[in-house]
């Protein structure tokens, strides 16, 4: 029997990886009204840039990660100023296909530079410490209470929660953040009232790319493997989190990321459902929630 507490904890850790990517994806949708299919590749770029700066250049890991996030921010700005700026009026489908193109280009570039072979940071191993290890009997059933925790998983959860708090403060306490919320609510009206919507769009790309890169680094740190499809492989879960939370709302993305990640882990508790059906169960949860709340948990609200 597996421990439910452990599953919840694992879900929390995975949710912290997903929340980083989901917030950016949702911001981009809220401001630009398009689904960014290049988001997965922004994760991958972050992971590989850190590999370059940490593994090849030899910088300390945290510094390498911070610098790669900076580089990813620059990449986000470049994508917006070089490409997306010409398509502010284009349809969502056009924008979606452009981002698919960007995704393919980025992934191919990664393959050219680093090949398809898996890589890793080679960071020291961290073994889980058992903080709980007992079994209690409740109404005739044995309930396993065990929990293994490591500095690594705690760090990942801390990064996720800190970043979510950071995004919240940015959106509520800074002028740019407030402008972003205004633009998301009504772009034309925001423009009329003097908000520089171009600046808002570019900033959104910068923030989204930076968060995605951070997510990629954390994902690679957590799984121990870096490969060209790594970002794309989690993109589906990220989209599910965003849709579940209410697409366009960063707060919805925060809730959605944790709900879907924990639901994914808990699926193994259902008798007869093997762990290979985790993703299906997560999506089932999403579909059921959308049946009752079609606009998602947060329904596109920004506060």
């Amino acid at each position: 029997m597996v421990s439910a507490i452990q599953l919840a904890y694992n879900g929390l850790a995975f949710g912290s990886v997903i929340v980083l990517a989901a917030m950016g994806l949702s911001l981009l949708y809220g401001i630009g009204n398009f689904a960014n299919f290049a988001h997965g590749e922004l994760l991958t770029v972050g992971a590989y840039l850190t590999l370059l700066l940490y593994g090849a250049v030899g910088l300390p890991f945290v510094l390498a990660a911070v610098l790669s996030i900076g580089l990813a921010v620059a990449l986000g700005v470049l994508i917006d100023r070089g490409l997306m700026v010409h398509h502010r009026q284009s349809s969502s489908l056009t924008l979606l296909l452009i981002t698919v193109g960007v995704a393919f280009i980025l992934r191919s570039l990664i393959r050219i530079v680093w090949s398809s072979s898996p890589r890793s940071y080679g960071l020291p191993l961290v073994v889980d410490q058992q903080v709980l290890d007992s079994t209690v009997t409740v109404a005739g059933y044995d309930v396993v209470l065990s929990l293994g925790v490591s500095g690594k998983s705690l760090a990942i959860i801390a990064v996720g929660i800190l970043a979510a708090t950071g995004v919240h403060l940015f959106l509520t306490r800074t002028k740019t953040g407030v402008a972003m919320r205004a633009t998301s609510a009504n772009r034309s009206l925001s423009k009329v009232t003097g908000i520089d919507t171009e600046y808002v769009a570019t900033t959104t790309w910068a923030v989204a790319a930076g968060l995605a890169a951070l997510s990629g680094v954390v994902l690679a740190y957590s799984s121990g493997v870096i490969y060209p499809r790594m970002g794309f492989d989690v993109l589906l879960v990220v989209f599910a989190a965003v849709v579940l939370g209410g697409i366009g709302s960063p707060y919805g993305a925060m809730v959605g990321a944790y709900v879907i990640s924990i639901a994914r882990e808990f699926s193994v508790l259902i008798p007869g459902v093997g762990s290979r059906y985790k993703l299906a169960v997560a999506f089932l949860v999403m579909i059921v929630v959308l049946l009752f709340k079609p606009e998602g948990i947060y329904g596109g609200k920004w506060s």
Partner: protein
Amino acid sequence: MVSYNSGGETRRSYLGKAGGAALLTTGLAGCTGVIGGGESDLNTIGAAIPQTGNLSDFGGQFERQAGFALDIVNDAEERIEFSYEDTQTSENTGVTAAEKLVSQDGLPMVFAGLSSSVAIAIAESVAIPNETLMATGGTSSAITELEDDNWVFRTSPPSTLQAQALATMIADDGNSDVSIIYLNDDFGTAVKDELVASLDTLGVNVTDSVGYASGKSSYSSQLNQAASGDPDAIAFVTFPQGFIVMAKEAFEMGLKDQVAYYGIENIKGSDVRDNLDAQTISGMSGTQPSPPTERDSFQRFISENEERFDRTPSIWEAYYFDSAMVMGLTTVAADSYESAALRDNVYELSRPPGESYTYWQFDDAVETLANGDPINYQGVSGNVDINQNGDVVGTYRRWNFADGEFQTGDFVDVADDL
């Protein structure tokens, strides 16, 4: 399936050479046809292989080894030639290519398909309905299952047989309870099924077999499930990328000290070695298909290849060479160049009780056959004793991970019960 073999870069780099070899061989084949002219005993064997597409470099390897075998078979007397058609590594094109060889050219024997999917398509829609003898390079266990009335055979061992060697090893090491983590696709499931059946036969209890999908960043639930039955060992039917995540995670969960690890050949390689801390998999063992490296026939095959082609052949090339040699011997052994006569001879000449001959004893083997006595062809890739399923068993070696390296160990004697 060929495509599961690792080392994409090296395969690709031979592309150029492969193309050159293709031109050269077809050119030569054309010439001999013209020179031979008129009445001749020259028999044509059809070959539908990938000259373009994903497996094109394997096609080049086939042509290289077929050419080598041809020189031996035709040394004393012009006997056979190959007629090539390109499958483009695609089922549809492959079937068309094979149809041209079988239906239009009326050839009674073909070599077709280096990948299992193309091989099965050709076997089902061309070779079996047309009652044509077909050799193939595919390694899927689905080829064993074909209702082929003995029309299809191969000299490359089916990939699932590795599971028998792995099961033997796990049992011999004294494990009594084992769980399996396997990639949830055709290949992984087939290997898992064979492994479960073999372990069962050997009296080892399988506590759980857990499927996984590739591309996930965590496999903690699979690992938990695999560990839940308190097994002595976990067998990993996995590929490097997923395995790297699992091995690291299992170590962090503290599983490493509780169970022994076993794995299939795909795990062995620099991807796993370079991306995992050595202590996460130290002491792990596994199986890998291996040519009988200690035998004269294999060593001579390697050195002659290096001399002729200036490169070391892969294990696949040893299989292709054996295929071509068996087909050459079959044309000699059969009293007519017709499908049924060929089929009646191909199985017998590959296995006991006949006298054993290696490839350089080809002329002696021909003499024995001429005297009406049976022969037993000894291949370079192994004994090449083709059973009634059209399969050969193959040889397997143990690998161990120790001191941060994969080390090749002893040959595994697959248990007789399997």
